[in-house]
């Protein structure tokens, strides 16, 4: 998913930066509103978590293992706008300090992993889970679908960005200058690999981690208080009266 420098031509990477700059500014404004002075340490820890989640290897059939991106989980727990910031910060560290992902492709990488995954994941989770209790199985299933769909759509977007290169950037003789494969190759390559393999790992991790958090510390889940407050009229919570 990390696109390095040299894969995308100037038209694409400049457009992706133009798209991302207002998103970064708005995400900062939005998060500042509800986090206030807590924002820096809170976001820093969440960004550090986003970075290290890729170090967790998950066993998969065939004796191999894969790792998750975790942006959908972060979006469900912290909200999609906080996920934009934390994923962007984690990607910038990966790009600047460890050379994983390019400097010119940074805008595109942030769009794919820091915007598409969190927003697709968060709204999928929200739509499926509805107003069910926080520990319901439907929410766990919703988290799994959110993880799967978020990563699959992001892979499709990355495949699209790479696949349009031969049409956008080529010599007068038609020889491609950047990613040489068209949409007919990049889209199926990215989608098949992710839908059948990486997105399943992402779904699994998102669901299990969500189930664990919902069971052990649901108060950290984004929207939890709001959802609890809305159900307070019908049901009292004797263990946590201030929530209800």
């Amino acid at each position, binding site marked *: 998913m990390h696109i390095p420098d040299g894969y995308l031509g100037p038209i694409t990477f400049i457009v992706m930066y133009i798209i991302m700059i207002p998103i970064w500014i708005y995400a900062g404004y939005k998060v500042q509103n509800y986090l206030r002075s*807590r924002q820096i340490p809170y976001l820093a820890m969440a960004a550090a978590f986003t970075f290290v989640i890729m170090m967790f290897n998950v066993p998969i059939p065939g004796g191999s293992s894969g790792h998750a991106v975790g942006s959908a989980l972060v979006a469900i727990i912290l909200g999609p706008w906080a996920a934009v910031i934390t994923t962007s910060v984690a990607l910038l560290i990966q790009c600047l300090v460890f050379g994983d992902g390019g400097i010119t492709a940074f805008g595109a990488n942030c769009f794919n992993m820091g915007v598409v995954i969190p927003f697709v994941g968060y709204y999928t989770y929200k739509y499926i889970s509805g107003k069910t209790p926080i520990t319901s199985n439907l929410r766990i299933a919703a988290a799994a679908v959110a993880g799967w769909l978020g990563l699959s759509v992001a892979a499709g977007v990355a495949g699209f960005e790479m696949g349009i290169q031969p049409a956008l950037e080529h010599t007068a003789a038609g020889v491609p200058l950047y990613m040489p494969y068209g949409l007919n190759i990049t889209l199926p390559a990215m989608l098949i690999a992710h839908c059948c393999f990486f997105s399943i790992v992402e779904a699994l991790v998102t669901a299990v981690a969500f189930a*664990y*958090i919902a069971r052990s510390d649901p108060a950290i889940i984004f929207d939890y208080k709001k959802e609890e407050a809305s159900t307070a009229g019908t049901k009292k919570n004797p263990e946590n009266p201030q929530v209800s």
Partner: protein
Amino acid sequence: MTEPHTCMQIPAWMKSGETTEECPSYDNKRRKKNFIQKSISGVFRFFDESLQNEKYIRQKGFLQSLDPRVKLLSIIVIILGVSMTRSIEVLLLMYILSLIAAYFSKIDLFFFIKRIWLFIPVFAGIIILPVIFNVFMPGDAAIVLISPGQGAHLGPAALPGGLTITWQGLITATRFILRVVTCVSFAVLLFLTTRHSVLFKSLRTFHVPKIYVLTLDMCYRYIFLFSGMIRDFYMAKKSRTLKPLPMIKEQKWVGERIGHTLIKSLKTGEMVHMAMVSRGFNGDAKIMDTFCANRRDYISGVFSVILGVSLIIFSQITIIH
């Protein structure tokens, strides 16, 4: 008097003090790394890479001595120029320039080349490989691999005209690989020669909001804490593993550790915030700016910007022609 713990005896193999054979653990029987070993070695590689970076940052070389703001701007402009360059000769020259810069920055060239070529370009090479064949990019044949002749059949199926490596494919692949390698080389040079904290602070030069810069700086420090935590999870699991659990249980274990790490990281954030507030933090963070550019920094900066802009102009001229 009877001995209090007569039932506890040290096994004979412990008394001998020498091992006759390797411990017959589950992991030693498997040649392929399982997910526990992969994770542990991934974390150790991360720590190792960070230490290597630290070693080169401390050298007194050419790039290390430059002002980080100038260096960041210069390398961004150069990468932008390289990413727009179409000429293979110019890309090759720029790659050689990155090696010269690495040499004068006292970076071990063997380490530098290995680090660049071992990962990203190999991956890029696998992606670009099919392009050299006429199946993906038709063109003039450079090497004929299979030539079944016109009208050849394999049973009822008609065979294509032949499989060749084309000149056009070779040029496209070379240009692609060289561009990726050169861009990655300059990016790696930036972080091999700049302390992460000053590198992040120098982002303020480009008007990156303070909240992002401070978050970056704090995040980088806590990555090490959480990486150590992950290493400990897997180490503890490995030390208890006699036989692997069913895959679904192993997956559940990983998912729960991820959930635990997230809870722990947010709780740490709360504690760090309280510690900051107790020291007078009111949400308005300050960055101690101690950058000081001298004449050499300005010369290097101007040279790099001219070089990068020249590459961009050169690439536009070649488009027009």
